[in-house]
């Protein structure tokens, strides 16, 4: 069985590193997008099992993207995990309060990222 992941981050290099890290797990299939708007476009076709969402992005930031995804029928129950370089005191709690399934902090361990993400998948 494979799981589809939608990874959203405005940083090209990070998208590449994260995608490679996640795909170390042969059961994870990753589509990465450079913006929240693009993620909303891809959502109906890609039908991800989980969205991995950067917080600080230009134009549409992570929390706004989460809100927009939640407005879609396919996004209402979708696990959304924030991945952020800003996880100081209280930041993670605020993100969780928005309805996120979890928060992963940058920098992440590339050899463990897939394992971390799998823990938020419904069947895991």
């Amino acid at each position, binding site marked *: 069985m494979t799981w589809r992941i939608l990874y959203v981050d405005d940083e090209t290099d990070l998208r590449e590193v994260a995608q490679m890290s996640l795909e170390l797990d042969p059961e994870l299939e990753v589509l990465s997008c450079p913006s929240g708007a693009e993620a909303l476009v891809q959502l109906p076709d890609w039908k991800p099992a989980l969205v991995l969402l950067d917080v600080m992005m230009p134009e549409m930031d992570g929390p706004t993207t989460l809100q927009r995804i939640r407005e879609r029928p396919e996004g209402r129950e979708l696990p959304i995990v924030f991945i952020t*370089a800003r996880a100081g*005191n209280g930041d993670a709690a605020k993100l969780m309060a928005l309805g996120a399934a979890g928060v992963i902090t*940058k920098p992440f361990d590339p050899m463990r990222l897939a394992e971390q993400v799998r823990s938020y998948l419904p069947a895991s």
Partner: protein
Amino acid sequence: MASDRRRDPQGGSPNEAGLLDRAKFERHAWEQTPLGARERWPGQLHFLCELLLCSEQPMFLLWSSERAFIFNRAYQALWRGRTLEGLGRPIHDVAGDNWEQLKPLVEKVFAGTSFVESNFTVFDEVENRRRYFDLSYTPVRGYDDADGPVIAALCITTDVTERFLTAETMRQEWEILALTVGNVTEGVALIERDFSLVLWNEPFRMHFGYEPEQVRSGMNAAELIQHSASRGDLGPGDPGAIVAALVQSIRETDSGALEVQRRNGTVLRLLRRSLSGGRHLLVSHDITDERRTARLKDELVSTVSHELRTPLTAISGALGLVSGGAAGEVSEKAERLIRIAQRNSERLIALVNDLLDADKLQSGTVEFQWERLDAADLLRAAVEQNQPYAAGTGVTVEAELPARPAIIRADRNRLLQVLANLISNAVKFSPAGGAVVVRLAVNHANARISVIDCGIGVAEQFRERLFERFTQHDASASRVQQGTGLGLAISRSIVEQLGGSILFEPTDPQGATFHVDLPLADS
């Protein structure tokens, strides 16, 4: 004519023995004065002299057109240190240097006016200071001749030195206060018990944006509060209610601190204190810039940390993938180089994290998750967590724990952070094969956690700066001791905010010991 007190045979008040009494008065050689022999004096002069002789109040008389000077014992005693002579002689002969001062007064009273001359000064040679008198002058007219000419002047003297000096001291103190208040950057206002404004400075007026003519001495301070409230400078709501609440709070509470943001964006910190006598002191401090700077700093720290972490995530991620074999086989040399790059990117990440942490701890914005903990459990966890790092350098870490639990109130993760820092430092500065001991002891009201190593120790000149930021012990020649220089500063901040203290002690005979003292929960 001054006489020397030391020559006074009685040793009491100066010239006590020489003071005028009835006998001396009667024996006086009056016939050698313009008044002539006493037997020929008019009855009114006898009567006035009798009044002088009987009175304890210092007084003197100037009689007739000759202005003959007659004084009493009490008046004579006022002139301490001087022999007052000239009984019965014209005042202008007797007064000497004082005549210029006295002349207009004498003329005024003989012109028929009664008056009080305040603060007449005399230099007291015994006490070596000025003394001050109120002189009350009264013109005296002949018996049954109320509208007739003034035939004498009676002067009653009151010593007001103490009153004068007190008033003078108060005036000088007020002057110093006004000068001080005028030269401070804080706004200051003093409000009387009846709520009248008695003192204020320019910064006070500027802070609240009052026009110069709006602030007047003696005005009701509530009027000023009303100005501010109606402009919306004291927050939203009915101005009348705001004024009433504020006035009531000032009247009913001893002191208070308040922050107000004016409509124009100015942020003021107001401190109020009740003074004795029911007065109130108000100090205003413009903290607009302070607030703006703090906000900018927070934004800067947050942005910089994000901007630094993003590329660091890509670097460490890419290196991690290569060294983890995700990109296939690499040569042994390449792997060594990748490990160097990895180690250094980790170091940069640690630095960014520590900088952020130190900043937040210093600004007091860290929220602690308080809970009851057994310090022994925490020590076991800390030792376990740091075991892999220690094993990698060939150093052992042992816990020495008491039999009974030591319950403290603390933030588990923050305290683990402190212990990780102390243990990793101890390991870092210990030789391979060395041992680090983590000991818990309970003494009085404290739990004492000690991290003891037998490493290179801390040089004498370095000890007092040990807990300051960016303080790092010189790396020894043989090993490079990497760190951010923030670990001990962060540890101290955490321990102090947990209500404890951290201190250093050299280990005997060699090494370093760090003690963390934390209050026991139930003490």
